[in-house]
């Protein structure tokens, strides 16, 4: 029980320290941190529109975080979530604009297409790791660039005639909802958040309750012992990457089918896949932790948009504050050390 409280205390303390450090930076730069944090808070909780937009921002962060966390838990570093997300986005939109089907079939099909595309993209580094021991980080970083440029090509030359975005998806493939949008004063909130939460439950179930998860984690911890125990190490490495890629592909599908309704040419990465690494770390690679971390991360990102609107503080400062929070979480060892010292002194 004490340990659990301790586990919760560290991320909370990290966030507080991050906010404090951010305040110092704003003070030094001559801005008023109180105004900034008020604007930030209002930008998340201030009215239902902001809240809706914040939840919408959170959705892909949850899925990207799950993708990274799942791979981490099984001993792999999937830094290719970004690329898997981009191909998932395009695949989902592709199904969304190509077929005309009843919604009950069309929407799940489009989401699954996104997941499948992400899975295929993640399978490549998984296969190379399993068969040739090529490090998954190298392959998946390169595949991020490949994904970016291949999808750009497909959008301009296959799906359209040299346009920079696809048609909008059919209504039967959309995750958008007049109901949710209406409730939140016209925000772009969509059903994706439900998909993300379901995926978090699925990840928890796979890792904690199934024989598959038992094998995946065992292989991640100790390949030799897993092989000795009769597990198929190579299959598990590929499986782990594929499941991770499905989550990443779903993240892209949420953007394609929910937030935007189309796919457009990108000049650079969305950043969501990379932020997913921070979300996974912040959430200690557990399903519930990732969801909470994604809410924090997405909330900050969404709320931050309001700071330059209401105060003279530039957007860059906001990015610094978020970066500081992540920094303090990453150095949680340091915070743990301080807490331990305080505890020890308290006992004496």
């Amino acid at each position, binding site marked *: 029980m004490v340990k659990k409280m301790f586990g919760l205390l560290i991320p909370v303390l990290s966030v507080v320290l991050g906010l404090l450090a951010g305040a110092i930076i704003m003070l030094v730069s001559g801005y008023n941190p109180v105004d900034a944090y008020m604007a930030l808070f209002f930008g998340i909780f201030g009215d239902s529109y902001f809240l809706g937009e914040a939840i919408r921002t959170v959705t892909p962060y949850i899925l990207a975080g799950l993708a990274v966390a799942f791979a981490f838990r099984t001993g792999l570093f999937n830094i290719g979530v970004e690329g898997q997300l981009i191909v998932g986005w395009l695949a989902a939109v592709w199904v969304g604009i190509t077929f005309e089907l009843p919604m009950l079939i069309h929407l799940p099909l489009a989401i699954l297409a996104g997941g499948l595309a992400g899975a295929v993209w993640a399978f490549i580094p998984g296969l190379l790791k399993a068969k040739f021991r090529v490090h998954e980080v190298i392959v998946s970083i390169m595949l991020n660039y490949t994904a970016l440029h291949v999808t750009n090509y497909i959008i301009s030359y296959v799906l359209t005639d040299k346009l920079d975005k696809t048609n909008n998806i059919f209504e039967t493939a959309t995750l958008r909802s007049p109901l949710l949008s209406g409730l939140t004063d016209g925000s772009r909130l969509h059903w994706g958040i439900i998909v993300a939460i379901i995926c978090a439950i699925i990840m928890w179930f796979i890792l904690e*309750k*199934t*024989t*598959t998860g*038992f094998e995946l*984690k*065992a292989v991640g*911890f*100790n390949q*030799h*012992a*897993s*092989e*000795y*125990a*009769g*597990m*198929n190490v190579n299959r598990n490495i590929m499986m782990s990457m594929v499941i991770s890629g499905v989550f990443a592909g779903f993240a892209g599908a949420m953007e394609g089918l929910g937030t935007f309704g189309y796919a457009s040419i990108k000049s650079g990465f969305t950043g969501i896949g990379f932020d997913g690494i921070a979300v996974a770390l912040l959430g200690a690679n557990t399903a519930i932790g990732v969801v909470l971390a994604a809410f924090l991360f997405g909330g900050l990102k969404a709320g931050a948009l309001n700071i330059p609107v209401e105060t003279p503080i530039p957007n860059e400062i906001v990015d610094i504050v978020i970066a500081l929070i992540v920094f303090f979480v990453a150095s949680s060892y340091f915070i743990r050390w301080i807490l331990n010292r305080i505890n020890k002194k308290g006992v004496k």
Partner: protein
Amino acid sequence: MEYVIEMLNIRKEFPGIVANDNVTLQVKKGEIHALLGENGAGKTTLMNVLFGLYQPEKGEIRVNGKPVKITNPNIANELGIGMVHQHFMLVDPFTVTENIILGKEPSKAGKINIKDASKKVRELSEKYQLSVDPDAKIKDISVGMQQRVEILKTLYRGAEILIFDEPTAVLTPQEIKELMLIMKSLVNEGKSIILITHKLKEIMEVCDRVTVMRKGVGIGTVNVSESDPNSLASLMVGRDVVFKTEKKESVPTDVVLDIDGISVKDARGIQVVNQLNLAVRAGEIVGIAGIDGNGQTELIEAITGLKKTINGSIKINGKNIQNLKPRKISESGVGHIPEDRHKHGLVLDYSIGENIVLQTYYQKPFSKTGVLNYSKIYDQARNIIAEYDVRTPSEYTPARALSGGNQQKAIIGREVDRNPDLLIAAQPTRGLDVGAIEFIHKRLIEQRDNGKAVLLISFELDEILNVSDRVAVIYEGEIVAIVNPRETTEQELGLMMAGSKRMEAGDKSRG
């Protein structure tokens, strides 16, 4: 000023466990003082307290009569306490000298004076007859030499009191002899030594006095000259210990394991098992005696499916299992206590309970349609923990947190409980204390008496002669002789293991 080190009434607690309870250790100047105890008795904890890695809850430490507070290893170093760790802390691509000066580089204007350092290392090495080449790279020298580098490291830093943490665990018999001489020359030069060990032979050979610990409690200190191995063993374990394992005559029946002419290549592609024949019958223990590196590891890996064989056949109860997947072989009735428990035997980050079902998690009742049943898994774990006397705070404790002996007991419990027709035990007692060894030998013999076949691989001749019903000698990947342990001697076995005496092995090895 009689004692160089005094640790008085030390108490050290960890959450849920008292590792040291009122332990007193007093070391005289110029003596070799043994710290004897079973695995998990708290020896290493006590030494970590002395070395400043842990802070005691109670008790006092005195160095040369003066009370001191050792809050980190640097202070221990300054007080002249040096530790030779069991697992060496060396940088492989660096030279001996570079390793020794690491962290204390003699430098002038930012430039390291390696020549002077090398000279000083050579002088030290000569003074204590260590014959270490200061310019050799660590990766090019033997394990025994690496240990001497660790010793030099502490001497270079001016250590007067050297702690050796189970130094002989990694050494060959020849290297052990040399280490004993080195320790004697160290005390002749006025150093004092604390030797952590559970090997009674070593204590009788070099130590002056011995402090015995049992379950975290200091039992007392005795003079070695007034003691003998039997009384030390019973002090350590808390009851009388039988060195000679008692067993009935074996009643071998049908052939369980039948190996016919297999060859196996090692990781480098060199054929290390050559046309090997071996049969093990139900109701007998066959011991494989041999010097490390004569194909034992590859033989086991071939039987258990971890390595492919290139010809011949391996049958279990008449069914060919050659080159099947490890799981299929395990399901055919083969249990395997692996040589390296950390590498193969356990997932250290998994709980003891999860490790207990490492091969059977996918079977009923531990899972159903792919979903684990943790209450059944931990039920099973509790059974094994109770039956095999695995000392652990709970079945949820990570395997990493257990001592070596208890990890091994958990593995043995897991393998024996599956009741395999063939149990392969590779070095089952390596690094364990007499109590645990006795327990494990009993279990192996029990399996045999229940009509199972047991294949024992060990580098300890005592163990082979003590436990086996038949001894197969392996040399360069072949079984060169099969002998009856009651009709042979260690000397004769040793000669055969060295390849100087071959018997016609062909038919006899098939029992």
